[in-house]
């Protein structure tokens, strides 16, 4: 039951075959038994059950609010949730209870969704491993899957079998793990340089980054205001479309959302791809790309070709500058956005009280980890009067060039771009931490960042398992505000590849007997 797509379970709710409170309870107890994943920072048990009860009443009356009514969801802990702690996995906001809901959270609640809790992340969403938050790293559920265990060769008898667990990727690792381990049906993440798509790829779930300006950022604690978007993590593309439909649209509280009326869409089943033109950007054959993923990418291209689509190699020549460009713009905005954390109005305040300045300094040193402090220092450096022209302005110009690369390619008749999402499958935590956050981010973001620079929609679709039994995903990048086309193609692809469902003992134990469909997460009962 928990493994099913939300649309299906929605039908079950409607027909009374399962009650919202029961669904909620199961998810809550699964969260408890998968606590070792450390996917959740806060579990809002009481409020979730209350929401489930309300939902149940509505179903009994025959008046559910919509498809999402009663559906358990999780939200990354950098979204404001009224009455529920919002920490951004930082000491700076430990214990911070926001008085308002982020617009996207409010929209989900208005649809009757049940908010199970807040998920773990890299501190203030800075990182690509979900390893650098104050509540500790998130473990990839696939580390405990039969698929991974079967493939992993224990190095020695005495080795703690727990020690080679793999990372989720980041920074929305908690949300990806939560969806991947069936504790919720959908989760909100955020995506600034790939933070939704990267963990989605490593955890074998669908990760959608919408077009910048489509979904409100009001209430999302910002990393880079000009690149951040709320991200959607689900187990199948259809679900992502449903969630997108409930979130997209102009928000007067966010002046960067577009004014046009958004029309939620239902994804049709694409049968004929012959009119489709798929672009393969050659620069995405990046250094460090594993041969496995390269092969998979190639296979995917062939899949489209064999189905009649036009598949052509394209060039995004400024791709190689995106890392440095991103670094400058990101750190500059971070330095600015973090300036408000001074301990005065909210959050952590140091005991140091010799002077306002010393209080600020101590508060910020105590409240932020090195990653955040490092970015603030870099950012302030780039914003200095003497550096502004050479760094910030230059980076903005380069950003425009990167965005123009896409404009040219899409303007030449290409509909969708197909690229890898990550350079490799998830690596073990012990290996990941050998390099620092900055190095890792620079490496891991290369395939996902450009979409944020250009504000384009992009989606990770789980494709196959690696030799180590871990998920590998591929990425589709679409035209601005053409989510419908993007998701339609993604859905077609999803159907072709039939990505296997994770085999987690914990989940099996919970769902004994009810768990029928082991093969694929991309089915919908009423379709077969």
């Amino acid at each position: 039951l928990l493994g099913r797509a939300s649309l299906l379970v929605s039908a079950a709710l409607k027909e009374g075959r399962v009650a919202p409170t029961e669904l909620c309870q199961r998810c809550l107890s699964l969260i408890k038994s998968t606590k070792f994943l450390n996917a959740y920072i806060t579990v809002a048990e009481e409020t979730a059950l209350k929401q489930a009860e309300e939902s149940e009443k509505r179903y009994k009356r025959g008046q559910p609010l919509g498809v999402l009514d009663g559906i358990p969801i999780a939200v990354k802990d950098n979204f404001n949730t009224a009455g529920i702690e919002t920490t951004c996995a930082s000491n700076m906001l430990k214990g911070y209870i926001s008085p308002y809901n982020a617009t996207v959270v409010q929209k989900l609640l208005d649809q009757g969704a049940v908010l199970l809790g807040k998920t773990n992340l890299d501190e203030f969403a800075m990182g690509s491993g979900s390893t650098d938050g104050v509540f500790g790293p998130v473990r990839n559920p696939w580390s405990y899957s039969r698929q991974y265990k079967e493939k992993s060769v224990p190095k020695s008898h005495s080795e703690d079998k727990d020690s080679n667990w793999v990372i989720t990727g980041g920074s929305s690792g908690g949300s990806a793990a939560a969806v991947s381990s069936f504790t919720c049906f959908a989760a909100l993440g955020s995506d600034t340089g790939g933070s939704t798509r990267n963990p989605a790829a490593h955890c074998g779930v669908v990760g959608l980054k919408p077009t910048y300006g489509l979904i409100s950022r009001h209430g999302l604690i910002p990393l880079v205001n000009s690149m951040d978007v709320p991200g959607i993590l689900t187990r199948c593309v259809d679900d992502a479309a449903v969630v997108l439909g409930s979130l997209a649209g102009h928000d007067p509280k966010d002046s960067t959302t577009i004014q046009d009326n958004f029309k939620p869409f239902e994804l049709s089943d694409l049968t004929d791809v012959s009119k489709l033109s798929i672009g393969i950007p050659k620069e995405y054959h990046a250094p460090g790309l594993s041969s496995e993923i390269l092969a998979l990418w190639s296979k995917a291209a062939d899949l489209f070709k064999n189905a009649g689509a036009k598949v052509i190699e394209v060039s995004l020549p400024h791709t190689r500058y995106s890392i440095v460009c991103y670094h400058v713009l990101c750190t500059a905005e971070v330095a600015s956005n973090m300036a408000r954390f001074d301990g005065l109005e909210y959050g952590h305040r140091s005991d140091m009280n010799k002077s306002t300045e010393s209080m600020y300094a101590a508060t910020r040193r105590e409240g932020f980890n090195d990653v955040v402090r490092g970015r603030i220092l870099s950012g302030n450096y780039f914003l200095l009067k003497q550096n502004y022209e050479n760094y910030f302005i230059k980076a903005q110009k380069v950003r425009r060039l990167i965005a123009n690369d896409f404009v040219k390619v899409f303007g030449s008749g290409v509909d969708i771009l197909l690229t890898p999402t990550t350079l490799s499958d998830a690596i073990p935590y012990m290996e990941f931490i050998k390099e620092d956050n900055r190095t890792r981010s620079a490496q891991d973001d290369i395939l996902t960042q450009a979409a944020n620079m250009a504000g384009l929609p992009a989606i990770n679709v789980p494709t196959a398992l690696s030799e180590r039994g871990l998920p590998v995903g591929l990425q589709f990048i679409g035209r601005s505000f053409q989510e419908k086309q993007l998701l339609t193609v993604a859905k077609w692809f999803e159907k072709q590849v039939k990505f296997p469902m994770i085999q987690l003992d914990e989940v099996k134990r919970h769902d004994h007997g009810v768990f029928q469909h082991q093969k694929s997460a991309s089915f919908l009962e009423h379709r077969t």
Partner: protein
Amino acid sequence: SKLFSGSQVQFAAPPNSLVSFFDASLPGTLPVLNRRCVEAAVMTGLALNCSINKKSLFDRKHYFYADLPAGYQITQQRVPIAVNGSLSYSLCIDNKMSQMVTKTVRIKQIQLEQDSGKSLHDDVRSQTLVDLNRAGVGLMEVVMEPDMCCGEEAAAAVRELQLILQTLGSSQAVMAEGQLRVDANVSVHHPGEPYGVRTEVKNINSIRFLAKAVDYEIERQIEELESGGTILNETRAFDSKLGCTVPMRDKEGKQDYRFMPEPNLPPLILYNARSLPANMNHQQVVNIDWIHERLPDLPSVKRAKLVEQYGILPEHSFTLLNEAGLTEFFEDVIKQTQMKPKKVIGWILNDLLSYLKQHSLTVKESPVSSFLLADLLNRLEKKEISSTAAKQVFAELWKGEGKTPLEIVKEKKLQLIQDQEDLERICQAVIDGQENEVMAIKSGNRKVLNKLIGLVQRETQGRSNPVLVKQLLEKKLSE
């Protein structure tokens, strides 16, 4: 409401009672631009003859201070909303109202920005109290070029700006309530040389203090330079008690504000009739031309109209506009009296206004209404009373006891003698009683006539029309 949030703006509200989530810089909140502030800035720009930038941008100016919750102020550093304007103002030469000269100061730009909160330093308890009520309130910063040469010019320019803002309604511009704040940048140089190092003078709380502060600072700089010193590019505060400027506690120091575009606000696009797209909902946009058409008459226009319409002197029009409600009072009186405006103005400026000033009252608080004054002036016009008597009546009216001019005239027996025969008889009596004076007059000393007029006045207890008395005396003496 505030520039980027819906909080109310109110002077002297309880501390921290007008603070929205955005004003408190709660994480995740975003700015939303207030349309009225934009319109106010456009109106002000148009009134100051500026070019309105159809596209202007918002920036973040970073510095850490307790009353700046976000750690940055949203302002317009790169491209402000209006540029290159001018403000004309008038000065009296040598303090004589009769000689006014018009001067102009160029307006460099007008920019929209956020105000900060207020911090109150409690040195006794070693703490700072922060009130964020003011944080985020919309400010229009009007930057003038250094075209003024002394305190008087600065004061006159700012006064005119104040009147313009009040006329437009874009600000109440009351300095005492912080609605208009002035920072003066002062430097000195020898003629022909480039401008000297400037200091910025803050904490100026009235127009009067502005003039004082500027003049003091000019003196101080000249003295400093002439004794071989140098001027530091610093910020100084005006101490109104001591009448001098002192170096300010270094609030910001030589800071790099690390300006950065505000990423949460798209460029501000304004339209005019030509550029407005056909299908655009006019509720959603700000149309410069639409605003221009609806601008009220600016003070300079109002003054010119008063002069033309009523034949009063330019300096009169200045005084009229300078006092809230005085023009309206003047015009109300005009409507209700036959007396010519040129004469009415004297009563308004010399009598009414001086009484108001003496008692520190505003026009609104005047115990003498326009109706009463008009009534009094009518009686004077009809020669029912002499002008001396009229002044007496006015003084009585001022007591505000509710009596009408007619009642006061009757009570104090101030009516002019209307009976000509009666008057002739008295004149004759005076002539008969002043042989020497009559002879002096007849032999050519006309000045002595005034003595006779005076005697008649005394005899009639001031109830004779001096012009008529003079005529009668002359007639009799020439017989």
